[in-house]
């Protein structure tokens, strides 16, 4: 599946959050999205996920224009996103959290079949033993995994991860890497927002950089790292491990 | 033309009183970030207090009863806030948004039935402030309403001075804008909440006390003023002081002129609040932030 955004402009009142951003993501790509705070990364992800409608510009899925879809329709088309601060359904069980997206995108399937699949995914994430617990009793890291599990239940082609490593301890982070790579091996694409340069450079084959709403670099991470414009954008910012 | 002027004057006078009550609601929204669904019942309490005070203490002039009633109502508001609203801000309540709505609705139900239980369903009317119609040129208006209007103006001015010029007012504004920042500079936001709620409900009580001689008090007397207050703060913009004042005056005029020019005068009175409600629905659907909508004072 190929997703393309063309010429996206996003205005919030007087603020120009995105300034003519164009980007194409094909199958089986892990793309990192970085940029200083406020550069428009989450806005871009919100637009790709159709949670936000762009002021102008278009989104194309496999060549077809899909601008203006409702968020849930975008999910059904294969694009799902996580939130910067995890938003699992706190007073529902882990299993129910998994079933909601599954049932939402597969109206025809029976519940037992979907429950079975949910257990498989939970197993993959080594969380099956928690399936009857309330989401709110999970640790922060587990909730991140749960969100990933929810995404997987929507059978996505493109997974948009917003700060998946934030506040996650190293051991769990390794696991998340594993999961991402395994899912990628199955042909899915990722667009990952992160401030964690280590992780980005480890995982991503391609790096996209936003600064003040403009796309200033797009390409091989090692090349982008040395790009003058990128370095300048980060001037004054603490870069963890350039 | 006379008719029009008479209606306009009535509308303005009532509008100012409505504004006073709506201002109370706006203050509560602004400082505590909740809508007080029992606002009308505090209005009712103000009326009942006035009636009770004048009845119980013979020789007490109704005008003196008004501020005492207002204070009494504010005290009730204060205690309710301490017991049932403060926990929200102490993080003791799950799903606080829902809770705030339900608990004030519950309070409304409770207070109205207390009024019914203690005073019965029939109207009670405290004696007039001044027992004469007043003539302003060719317009006549009851002295009670005029007094209520004038006092409302005075109260509004006092309140504006309080909010803008005193330390307390500034503290209230600080909490309404950013309670964490306010806390950092030493303002106890919990106390400001309590004060804000007491002040807001006190204003409703004062409005009720002021209008009790004109309209009498029944247990459900607060229902329409309640709705009217919602209309006004949505029209003016939730949390906006100028909004509630201007909104109040607009609604006062709309009600007066609407009822006055309604093709069938007897039904016109019944639909008085409906005019405001239609404006209300339209505002919510078309421009939810109202005229001056912001969240802070």
């Amino acid at each position, binding site marked *: 599946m190929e997703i393309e955004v063309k010429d996206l402009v996003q205005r919030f009142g007087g603020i120009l959050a995105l300034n003519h951003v164009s980007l194409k993501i094909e199958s089986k790509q892990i793309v990192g999205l970085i940029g200083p705070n406020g550069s428009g990364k989450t806005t871009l992800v919100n637009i790709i*996920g159709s*949670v936000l409608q762009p002021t102008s510009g278009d989104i194309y899925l496999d060549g077809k224009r899909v601008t203006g879809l*409702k*968020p*849930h329709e975008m999910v059904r088309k294969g694009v799902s*996103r996580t939130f910067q601060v995890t*938003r*699992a*359904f*706190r*007073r*529902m069980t882990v299993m*129910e959290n998994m*079933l*909601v997206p599954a*049932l*939402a995108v597969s109206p025809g399937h029976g519940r037992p079949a979907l429950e079975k699949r949910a257990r498989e995914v939970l197993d993959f994430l*080594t969380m099956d033993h*928690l399936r009857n617990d309330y989401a*709110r*009793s999970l*640790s922060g*890291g587990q909730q991140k995994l749960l969100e990933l599990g*929810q995404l997987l239940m929507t059978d996505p082609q493109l997974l948009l991860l917003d700060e998946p490593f934030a506040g996650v*301890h190293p*051991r769990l982070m390794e*696991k998340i890497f594993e999961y991402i790579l395994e899912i990628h091996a199955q042909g899915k694409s990722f667009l990952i927002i992160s401030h964690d340069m280590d992780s980005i450079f480890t995982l991503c084959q391609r790096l996209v950089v936003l600064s003040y709403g403009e796309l200033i670099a797009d390409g091989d991470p090692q090349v982008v790292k040395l790009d003058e414009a990128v370095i300048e954008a980060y001037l004054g910012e603490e870069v963890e491990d350039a | 033309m006379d008719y029009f002027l008479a209606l306009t004057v009535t509308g303005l006078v009532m509008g100012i009183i409505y504004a006073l009550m709506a201002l109370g609601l706006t203050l509560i929204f602004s400082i505590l970030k*909740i*809508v007080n*669904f029992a606002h009308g019942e505090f209005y009712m309490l103000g009326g009942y207090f006035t009636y009770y005070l004048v009845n119980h203490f013979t020789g007490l002039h109704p005008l003196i009863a008004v501020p005492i009633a207002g204070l009494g109502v504010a005290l009730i508001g204060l205690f309710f806030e301490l017991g*049932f609203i403060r926990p929200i801000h102490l993080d003791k*309540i799950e799903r606080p*948004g*829902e809770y705030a*709505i*339900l*608990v004030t*609705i*519950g*309070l409304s*139900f*409770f207070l*109205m*039935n*207390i009024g*019914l*239980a203690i005073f019965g369903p029939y109207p009670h009317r405290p004696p007039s402030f001044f027992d004469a119609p007043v003539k302003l040129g060719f317009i006549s208006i009851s002295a009670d309403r005029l007094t209520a209007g004038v006092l409302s103006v005075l109260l509004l001015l006092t309140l504006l001075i309080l909010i803008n010029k005193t330390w307390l007012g500034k503290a209230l504004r600080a909490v309404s804008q950013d309670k964490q920042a306010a806390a950092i500079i030493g303002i106890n936001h919990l106390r400001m909440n309590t004060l804000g709620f007491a002040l807001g409900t006190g204003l409703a009580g004062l409005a009720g006390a002021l209008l009790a001689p004109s309209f009498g008090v029944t*247990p*459900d007397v607060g*229902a329409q003023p309640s*709705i009217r207050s919602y209309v006004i703060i*949505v029209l003016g913009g939730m949390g906006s002081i100028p909004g509630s004042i201007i909104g109040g005056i607009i609604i006062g005029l709309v009600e007066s002129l609407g009822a006055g020019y309604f093709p069938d005068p007897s*039904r016109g009175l*019944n*639909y008085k609040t*409906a005019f405001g*409600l239609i404006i*209300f*629905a339209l505002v*919510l659907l078309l421009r939810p932030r109202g005229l001056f909508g912001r969240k802070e004072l």
Partner: protein
Amino acid sequence: MKITQHLRVPKPWIIGVLALCAALVLPLFIKSYWLHVIIVAYLYAILASSWSFLAGYAGQFSFGHMAFMAIGAYTSGLLGKYIALPPLLDILAGTLAAGLAGFVIGYLVLRFKAAYLALFTIAFSEILRMVLKGETQITDGDHGLKVVKLFGETISRLPYYYTILAVLGVVLVLLFALSSSRIGMFLRAIREDEEAAYARGVDIVHYKILAFVITSMMAGLSGSFYAHYIGLITPSMMVLPQMGLVIAMAIIGGVENLAAAAIGGILIQISLEVLRELGAWRLVFFGALLVVTLRFARNGLLAPLFQHLFAFGPRAEGRKETLVDGD
């Protein structure tokens, strides 16, 4: 319970069947006056449980429920007055009219946050009440609109009792089925976090409106039935304190537990009758109970009891949590 083990029927259903049996034979043991009280109690049970579905499951704290009830009642009544349809068709029409109103309101409030939703539905309710009260030519306002009784000249309340019992049964079964279905899960997700639900593929517009339509139809149905039972309807059926009473029933029972809300309604209505001498103080008591329940027993008073005794489902939130240490 050996019997249940043999039959492999889950416990709640046994309770339900027993309750149904009790309800079926109840008229043999009580006087006609109390039969009336129970009939009205069943009506409140329908209102409280349907409201609790809309509020406790879908998270839509609407105050227009009594307005939908009134739409049902007055549609029935007015059709009877002007067209003289058979009562059953009236009731159908009333139910559908309420459903249509529910659709419109549900659509209008889609983007409203909780407080605005509450205010808007209060406004809707009040406007309707004013119109019903004001247009006396059509509705007979406060004098009351006369409505043909469902069972004509029959004096006995028995047919009404069994009819409303059947309606209550259908409503509860329907609500239970919905809440344990995927619709119920979607609604709970919407209540938990609407945006997240949207982002997980749930068509929140569709389901929110669905919740409104279904519950408003139930309210309308109870209103229509009420009209054809009492024979005289006035706008005072939908004054805000009535809505407050229904809310109290649902909350005191347990707003996230449909059975508790229904039974809360029945019990409170019966209590109100039993405590008749206390006059308005009865309502003061329940008002206080409502506020205190909200503050200290958020899940209601009956719901936790049911959970404890019967593991009575379905509910929006139920089991104990196991606190699991981080991975």
